[in-house]
């Protein structure tokens, strides 16, 4: 009984929660902090605006990522009860740079207090690069190291641009690989931002491998006509629930020297969007 009463009290205490996602709606301030590559803050001169009066909105947008953001466009798609400028376009925001501007909006005439939710959409183009080093050992080198227990001395490193698209690579066999073996590479695409990545468009993703991986082919990719080690996406990859279908690549390992090191580099250009809203109150004169 006591436990149930405590449970009831706990439920009562949290029952007022708004936006169970964790952020409480605040009038006159909207901050987007959930994107790895972009920070947006919108703040108004006042959170309560009288009928037919003006409000100043200050925007700060910052590139927190490692790749430039291009064709940045912020649109107030739902101005609710306000009129004024609603589109801002910025050609490029380089990493660690920000842009700042103001809009002046006028409230419509109201006869009642109205809570207004102003809707914003931000879109931009950017890219992610993910690379991993690959090591193929000649047969003699591989077996020698295997006998000596030194295979794990050959290490592989991984690097990735920090932004909303995370590309992860996995392999059918742990590295290092033996020469002239069939190796499968699995590529996963995940949207780790707070917004929406709808799809990776055709030709916008490339996979480049070094000659230590030969005779490659990748699902949904076609081999570049000039460079046989380059693969270009030839079907859009659509994201559902923040992830796109994985790609599987098959290669034959190739070592022309005892340790043939190389890399797999995946570069994806994409358009990202996120929505946020700003709560304002309009009151009669």
């Amino acid at each position, binding site marked *: *009984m006591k436990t*149930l*009463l405590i*449970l*009831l009290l706990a*439920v*009562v205490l*949290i*029952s*007022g*929660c*708004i*936006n*169970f*996602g964790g952020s409480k709606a605040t009038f006159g301030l909207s901050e987007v902090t959930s994107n790895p590559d972009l920070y947006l803050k919108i703040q108004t001169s006042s959170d309560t605006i009288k009928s037919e009066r003006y409000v100043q909105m200050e925007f700060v947008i910052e590139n927190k990522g490692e790749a430039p953001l291009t064709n940045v466009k912020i649109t107030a*798609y*739902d101005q*609710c*009860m306000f009129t004024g400028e609603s589109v801002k376009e910025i050609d490029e925001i380089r990493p660690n740079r920000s842009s700042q501007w103001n809009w002046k909006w006028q409230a*419509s*005439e*109201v*006869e*009642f*207090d*109205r*809570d*207004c*939710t102003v*809707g914003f*959409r931000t879109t931009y183009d950017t890219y992610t690069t993910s690379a991993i080093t690959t090591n193929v050992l000649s047969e003699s080198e591989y077996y020698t190291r295997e006998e000596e227990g030194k295979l794990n001395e050959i290490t592989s490193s991984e690097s990735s641009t920090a932004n909303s698209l995370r590309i992860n690579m996995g392999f059918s066999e742990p590295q290092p690989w033996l020469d002239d073996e069939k190796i499968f590479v699995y590529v996963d695409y995940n949207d780790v931002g707070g917004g*929406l990545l*709808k799809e990776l468009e055709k030709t916008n993703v490339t996979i480049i491998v070094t000659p230590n991986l030969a005779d490659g082919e990748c699902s949904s990719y076609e081999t570049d006509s000039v460079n046989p080690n380059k693969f270009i996406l030839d079907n859009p990859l*659509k*994201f*559902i*629930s*923040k992830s796109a279908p994985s790609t599987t690549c098959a290669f034959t390992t190739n070592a022309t020297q005892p340790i043939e090191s190389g890399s797999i580099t995946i570069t994806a250009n994409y358009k990202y969007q996120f*929505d946020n809203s700003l709560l304002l109150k309009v009151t009669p004169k």
Partner: protein
Amino acid sequence: MKTQYLIPVVAILLVVSVSGCVGFDGFKSWFGPTQATVEQTPDILITTNQRTIPNPPILADSEFTVMFTLKNQDQTQSLRNVGVKLYDWGVCNPVTESGVPQFLPDSDDWYIGDGFFLRTFDEFFNLEEKVIEFNLMAPDNQRIGNIETDCPVKWEVNYTFSSRSQDDFTAISKERKREFDVSGTSWTGTNQAQYVGIGPVKMYFDFKTPMPVQSESSIQFGITVVDKGSGIYPKIEKNTMFIKVPKEWVENVDDATTACTTGFQLVGKIDASSTAPAGYTPVSGGTGSITALAVYAHVEDGYVVYTNDKDISLYNRESSEIICRFKAPDLDTAGVPEKSYFISANITDYDYRLLGSQTIHIKPSV
């Protein structure tokens, strides 16, 4: 489960169901969606401190005063055309001097009609109070035949007021809907409370279409007019009720002229010209001989207006539901993911009547 646990468990479920946690619909699915309403008081003009001096019973052939305070209890709005009419006093008589009734305030300003006395206040300011006094004379012993009797003193207070209600509705594009579906999320917007303004005559919106409505889908809502005051308001006079909707809602309906219940007509014009006159937007509609002509809706601040072209009666203090059907605009073509709209309704300058009475017991004098 033991019965001793039943009450706490039910209590927890109830608390959860009414909690503000987004994403949990509580028991909505059981009882249907509910929408909050912010409603201002119906009582704007009230009468208080009603009394008779001296205290009844009143002796025959003596003066007495029936008095009360009239108060506009709204903090912001003044009232127009406030009238106080004394129309029944039974066997008692108003006290007059040189033909002027000894009523307050301003005895000279009381109009003497055929069987009534009327005092009109052009404007009754917000929070203003006025004491109304009717000085009356009880009948003499001869007239009442030395038998106790009653004087029914009756009056009416009327005033002119306007009523207004407002609600909001959100439409989302098909693309937006798809985005939610693809990302496994759902719309998190809120259905804001509808606002029902001050005054006895209230209008309530009831959206039949769940929010948010998808682009180009039907939007249907009802409006019911309810008299929540304590007075008399038998009908909505023709051309006094207005429903304002965003012009985007009428641009794609098959017949904008019949979008609301019969009895409501679109404020606009039917014109032979092929281009819309300034301040008008072309809409579909019209029947019979006017189909060959273009129908233009009058647009004011982005809204079109419907008005009642017939009186609407209130039965049991409530009108029948007025139904309107519109169509959400094509947000996809416009590239707008989501848009909130406001609709409003108002009844302008309606007359409201409050009845008051006091029965005065008269006793024969010794």
